């Protein structure tokens, strides 16, 4: 066997953060592609003179706006968790992670409320199917985020307090969701 000079093993760094960033890039491509197709179909419908949103269907905008606003505290709390973790402040880290997860659950609840209020069957034309597909995928990503928050909290509070990278990766994931929801809110809820 060839003998190369050996080195003391450096500490692993940023593996989880980089992995999360790559996953976020994939998520951006997923949602970006779906939104692009949504826009394309909407353009075709409008150009052909047909109604894009079926008559009588009302998408409640207030809960959608609340969901958008909810992502502001999500970002603040996620960064608060990073800040607290750097200072080994376990109680505040746990509190911040818990609040992020709680808002995530509230988001899912608000989305379910919108579905219930719309009373739009999935098979009600192109708009209905695309609306459910794209908001459903985003809701699944939010649920994944809630799970991520829970795992992060359990790992950090369970004794791995030196594992701050997961807290940073968790924050990055929620930043991605926040930006993605801004695009989704504007395209699907505001301009429809």
């Amino acid at each position, binding site marked *: *066997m*060839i*003998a*190369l*000079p*050996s*080195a*003391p*093993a*450096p*500490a*692993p*760094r*940023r*593996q989880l953060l*980089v*992995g999360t960033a*790559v*996953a976020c*890039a*994939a*998520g951006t*491509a*997923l*949602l*970006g*592609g*779906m939104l*692009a*197709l949504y826009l394309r*179909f909407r353009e*075709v419908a409008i150009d052909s003179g047909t109604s894009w949103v079926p008559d009588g269907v009302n998408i409640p905008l207030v809960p959608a706006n609340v969901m958008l606003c909810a992502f502001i505290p999500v970002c603040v709390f996620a960064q608060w968790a990073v800040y607290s973790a750097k200072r080994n402040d376990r109680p505040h880290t746990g509190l911040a992670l818990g609040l992020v997860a709680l808002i995530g659950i509230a988001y899912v609840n608000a989305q379910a409320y919108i579905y219930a209020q719309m009373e739009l069957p*999935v*098979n*009600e*034309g*192109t708009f*209905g*199917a*695309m609306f*459910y*597909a794209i908001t459903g*995928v985003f809701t699944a990503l939010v649920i994944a985020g809630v799970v991520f928050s829970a795992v992060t909290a359990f790992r950090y509070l369970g004794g791995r307090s030196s594992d701050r990278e997961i807290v940073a990766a968790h924050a990055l994931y929620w930043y991605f969701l926040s930006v993605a929801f801004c695009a989704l809110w504007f395209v699907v809820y505001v301009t429809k």
Partner: protein
Amino acid sequence: MTTIDPHAASAPATAGSGVAGVAEWLTTTDHKRIGRLYLGAAALLLLATSAISVLLGIERISPTREWLEVGSLTQLFSLQRFGLTYLVLLPLIVGVATAIVPLQVGARSLAFPRLAVSGFWLWLLGAGLGIYSIINNGGPGGGNRRFVELFILCAALVMVGLLATVISLVTTILTTRAPGMNMRRLPYFTWSVLVAGLGLVVALPVLIGDLLYLYISYRYQSLSELSGNRALAQWAGFGFTQPTTLLFAIPALGLFADTVATATRQRLRPRGIIYTGIALVSVAVFATVLQAPATLRPGFTSAARGDQLADLLPFLLVHGLPLLGCFVAVALIAKGIAAKPKVIAPLVFALFASLTLLGAVAANAVNHVGDAALAGYTFEEGTWLAVVFAGVLTAMGAVAYWGPKWWGRSMPLKATLPLALLAFAGAQLASLPLLIAGFANQPGAVFATVEAGIDPVTKVPNDLVVNFDYSGPMELWNILSTAGHALMLLAVLAFVALALRSFLKGEAAGDDPFDGQTLEWATTSPAPYDNFAEVHIVQSAEPLLDLKPANRSDA
């Protein structure tokens, strides 16, 4: 900052036998095993899809005698396209990369190995259920709605699985390199995997999103625009054709560069330009992201200057840059061969793979010139086959090259070299006649619009082709192409048999049987569970060559 996991991954207590051994394989986190699982499964699927290709070729030769049921032809062509692209080409490349990249970058393990192995099982589940759905009259052109829906879900599952493993690979390259191995010192193969991996991270999710829309469309019958086989070809077809598939075969260039450097015992230069050339091929991903075919419309030469520019710029970006990059990379790497290399089978495989890929990239550019009038004909199919077989040749070369690191035994040179020639002949025979037939207006099999029919599921027009009323010189091209598929099947069968023989009772390989330059040759053959006994410091792009001045051609 380059890092390596300081915690040597703990090896399984003992190599189990029977049920324990199987369970050990099923739950393995050893990247070499995960890669071999991909390779083994993809090799079996390659044999199956090659057999289908031969059957379809025979059907094309003989339009009067129907060997296959007409109703199943669309499904079989779709199975061939789906199978060779996502059950063979991509998993073969992902498998090779998973098995070797951590060794090349001096890592003790893959980043997120459980994610990578989960990706494999998701891919296998999707592949199995996808084939099952097609057998049950599902898939594109199928008449059973439930199984058509199942096929779409399975296709998405296959892509999610591959994406999971690709994310693991990309993260490994970006974060787990040995000390001193900066990005400019990455082995060429690892660089090509990184380039292809980043492209896939962007391209595959777009395809998954389209498949989700398609699933809802089929499931709820709600989107007439996204229903029927026309929709599958129109909205998800970009994932099964060029330029998207070019991404999958980029590692052919990396293997070529690594094997040339090894065989000539020289430092392959200029490193930066070769890196750039390989990276430029991935620019093809813009066609996927932008969903733009970037075609030079018919009448391009007589169009107004503004219209010409509007066509030419995207064409050059999506098709011109990959062609330029591929040509520059192949030319510069091939220039290294002038240094009288030692002839090793992996080099021959890699040379053939790179030439086939270069031909495919060039053919793809021609296919998007509107005045050539090739759309809907077999030219596209020939280009696609060239890409697939470039990937297959790459995988065969990689197994011949890195096999000793995976199972500690060498493949015999005398037996492997003829197989490289046979496989290359098969690849060219299978694809070139279809390119020629495309110029002679032979209708393409899947993504053409010739036969009008009614989709049995959605009752909307079906544009897929099952028309084989060929005669005259077409018959010759079809015979040659079928012979190519048969040769390829033979070559793959022989190669698998040879690899198995080598695995079971081959000659024991040394730690560095090819006199290599990169880190994987600095550990034992086969590599231990955690790859390296100690962490190495890398001081150049060819760390092992630095230690062998006597062998260097530039010494």
